[in-house]
């Protein structure tokens, strides 16, 4: 059989399968909806947890190669304090500076406050503030540019200036020159960070002194970064810091990753477990519906056998039908799953849905969508195997004898 004829046979097979599926419209539709719901659930949950994991991993990017010193009482995620534990700035910094093997140390105040915008109080944790000494901005933010190269970083410690994350700027339509009100202090936006890091996207960065004043943490910080000199490992420096300062934890990059790793593994395991259960349910659904369909069409399959159709043709008819359910359900699921992931992201962050749309593929990465689509199509295809084997065994003599 030449390739043209084989191609025609494939098109005919596909047409036949579409029509077979449309014979029981409601049942097929319900099955497709079932598969679509499964896909939607997997994508929404998967994308949300992936995003969560990515944000946590990103937290280390800013402080790569440095030891993070935090209070022993602090609750930390990747060494970012999210509760408790303040450090006396001057005495702690001075103690760290005296430790050999240190190149540079930067005290930072990291707070997750409310920002009052035009009289509306926006609750945490959708935004946070960082207070960094102005002379140390470069060592923390590296080469992060300002959007459109407009504006500048705050010039001195006492200026009421702030640089903001792009997501905050988009949400509140802030631009360079906008005055924002935080805890009664009026700050001027002097630049918008051009970054994709989740941490910086929702951040208001100001001078350390200003942050301490605004948030009433005068003389205190909650993170001190310590960069080792060349030849000194992070571990050696961290050990030295912990030996000399009893009230701090000095966390190396590896330790910070190790702290978060079990949580990430657990999240991924749960995610995988949920996906397995949902895919197994889809498999059972597709198999049941296809078995019913095959059972109702015994005569059709037996007729195909009688007129000389090969068993592989009969097998393909059933497999293509079940796979089509997966394809249609998968496409719908991808659409609604992506939408749901956006809605969840919007709900978690209070950022409007419209603002998330341009960055949809950061929340639901295309590769992830392709993986889930391939998985659901494969599941549907496998779901058709048992019904297809049943269909292959149907013989006209037996079917007609059973009918009379």
């Amino acid at each position, binding site marked *: *059989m030449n390739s*043209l*004829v084989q191609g*025609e*046979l494939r098109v*005919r097979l596909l047409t*036949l399968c579409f*029509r*077979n599926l*449309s*014979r029981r419209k409601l049942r097929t539709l319900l099955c497709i909806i079932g598969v679509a719901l499964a896909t939607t659930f997997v994508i929404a949950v998967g994308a949300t947890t992936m995003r969560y994991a990515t944000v946590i991993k990103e937290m280390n990017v800013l402080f790569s190669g440095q030891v993070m010193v935090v209070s022993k009482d602090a609750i930390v995620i990747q060494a970012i304090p999210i509760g408790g534990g303040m450090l006396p700035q001057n005495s702690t910094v001075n103690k760290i500076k005296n430790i050999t093997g240190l190149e540079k140390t930067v005290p930072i105040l990291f707070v997750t406050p409310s920002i009052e915008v035009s009289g509306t109080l926006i609750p945490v944790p959708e935004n946070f503030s960082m207070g960094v000494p102005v002379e140390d901005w470069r060592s923390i933010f590296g080469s992060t540019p300002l959007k459109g190269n407009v504006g500048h970083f705050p010039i001195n410690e006492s200026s009421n200036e702030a640089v903001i994350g792009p997501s905050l700027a988009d949400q509140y339509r802030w631009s360079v020159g906008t005055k924002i009100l935080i805890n009664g202090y009026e700050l001027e936006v002097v630049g918008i960070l051009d970054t994709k890091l989740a941490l910086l996207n929702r951040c208001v960065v100001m001078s350390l002194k200003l942050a301490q004043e605004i948030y009433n943490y005068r003389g205190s910080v909650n993170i001190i970064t310590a960069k080792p000199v060349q030849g000194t490992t992070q571990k050696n420096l961290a050990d030295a810091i912990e030996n000399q300062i009893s009230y701090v934890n000095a966390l190396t990059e590896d330790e910070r990753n190790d702290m978060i790793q079990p949580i990430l593994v657990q999240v991924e395991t749960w995610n995988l477990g949920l996906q397995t259960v949902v895919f197994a349910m889809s498999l059972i659904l597709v198999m049941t519906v296809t078995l019913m369909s095959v059972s109702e069409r015994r*005569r*059709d399959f*037996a*007729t*195909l*056998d*009688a*007129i*000389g*159709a*090969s*068993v592989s*043709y009969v097998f393909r008819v059933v497999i293509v039908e079940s796979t089509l359910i997966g394809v249609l359900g998968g496409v719908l699921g991808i659409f609604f799953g992506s939408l749901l992931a956006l809605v969840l992201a919007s709900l978690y962050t209070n950022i409007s849905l419209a603002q998330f749309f341009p960055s949809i593929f950061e929340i639901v990465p295309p590769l992830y969508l392709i993986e889930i689509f391939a998985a659901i199509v494969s599941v549907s295809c496998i779901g058709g195997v048992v019904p297809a084997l049943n269909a292959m065994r149907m*013989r*006209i*003599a037996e079917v*007609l*004898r059973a009918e009379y």
Partner: protein
Amino acid sequence: MRMKTTDLTRIYRLGPSEITAVNKVNLEITEAMFMAIVGPSGSGKSTLLHLIGLNDYPTFGKICIDDADVSLLSSSEHRKIRLLRMGFVFQTFNLLPTLSALENVELPMALAGKSSKEQTEKALRLLEAVGLSNRLVHRPKELSMGEMQRVAIARALANDPEMIIADEPTGELDSKTAKEIIALLFEINRKKKAIVVVATHDEKIVDVADRIYLIEDGGLRLQS
């Protein structure tokens, strides 16, 4: 095509009991023969047709086509013979409900690997020959019973079979339509020189058959 059966026997086992549906049938079918097999319900007509049509395996005995024993061939070899050398007409038509009349006739040709153009041209010719050129795109549920049986006959002729096996082809039809179907089968037999084997109760078929066999309790004997 010449077909010869020797001691063809088919026994069904239903739990502890055995039913001999076809019992030591010796039959010779030669080219261009119009053959009728008559007998009461449950006498084994359909079982014999399934055996002759290679849709079932005999319990004992053998079937030879052109002197070659085909009874022991694999089911895929049987399928090839059915596809390329035989055509089937069933009492209940057995058209695929999701395909149009034209597509139903094209299907055996598609399975045989013929090109789309060839399939369509031939299917059009066949449907015209059975008087259905105005019902091409209609699905089986939109056709009358007589029309469905005509489509089934056109489908049976798709791959130019040497033998057409028809199981009660007029069983579901009114008397006028039955006459037309019989005339059509007779015409195919005479014009195309195809063997036609019909299992029937219908005396009108018996009237036109070259040879009539009576089957009773699985045993076959020549009636006239």
